[in-house]
């Protein structure tokens, strides 16, 4: 009988690449973002056309650029991990520095995107003391019946100067999440 016969079965957690804590973080992020995405899709069930119009206010190209930045940053971080495992300090630092730099690029691009959205009046409507706390416009501003009223609240929640500047209405609460 050898010592291997008495060895406890190897846990799957021991096979995970990297530290266990980073996997806790990854699973937590997946759970939070997954729940958020499903919540968006559930909200979309109630007003698909309004949701589509809200999406038109966002920067699809900018979102793609940001994805490229994140994908490249992740690639550099993964490369840094491999370099560290091989004991190469210089390349590890270089890859990590570039990954961090792309993180800053992401923040700058996101900041510009948000600034532009805010300048166009996108975001949560201003609340008044009599308004509900649901993020919607006050009841007094709701149209009772009009063409396109299905897109409420956004068609009525944007100040006129912003509407004239953009050429279209905007301002649903869900667009604030970018």
């Amino acid at each position: 009988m050898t010592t291997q016969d008495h060895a406890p079965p190897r846990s799957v957690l021991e096979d995970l690449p990297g530290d266990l804590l980073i996997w806790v973080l990854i699973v937590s992020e997946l759970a939070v973002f997954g729940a958020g995405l499903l919540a968006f899709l559930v909200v979309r069930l109630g007003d698909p056309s309004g949701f589509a119009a809200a999406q038109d206010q966002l920067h699809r190209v900018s979102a793609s650029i940001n994805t490229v930045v994140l994908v490249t940053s992740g690639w550099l971080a993964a490369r840094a991990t491999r370099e560290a495992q091989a004991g190469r300090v210089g390349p590890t630092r270089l890859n990590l520095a570039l990954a961090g730099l792309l993180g800053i690029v992401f923040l700058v691009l996101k900041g510009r995107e948000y600034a532009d959205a805010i300048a166009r009046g996108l975001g949560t409507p201003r609340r008044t003391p009599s308004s509900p706390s649901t993020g919607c416009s006050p009841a007094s501003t709701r149209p009772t019946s009009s063409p396109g009223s299905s897109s409420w609240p956004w068609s009525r929640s944007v100040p006129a100067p912003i509407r004239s500047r953009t050429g279209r209405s905007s301002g649903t609460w869900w667009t604030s999440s970018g």
Partner: protein
Amino acid sequence: MLTKAWTTLLALTALSAAAALLLPGLGAAGWTAPTAILLFAWLKARVVLSRYLGLAAVPSVARGFGVVLALFMLAAGGLTLAADAGARPAVAAPAQN
């Protein structure tokens, strides 16, 4: 291997962007763009998990993530299609004489 994964992710990102930008303009049905984007996102998630995060070396864990990811995508796809079905104008019933 990492660089191949990176180029794959870039290609999938470009396809997602093309689907988001071009499909609505081509007169495609409303569900096509979001469904295509979901499929590309699914593929991207699989590449990230297996290559960037190294789960290709741990098939049992990769399978677990794959199953959960598949369930999530089914739920997301179902909600997407349900919203599109609800948005379609109802066909007018023929007049009864």
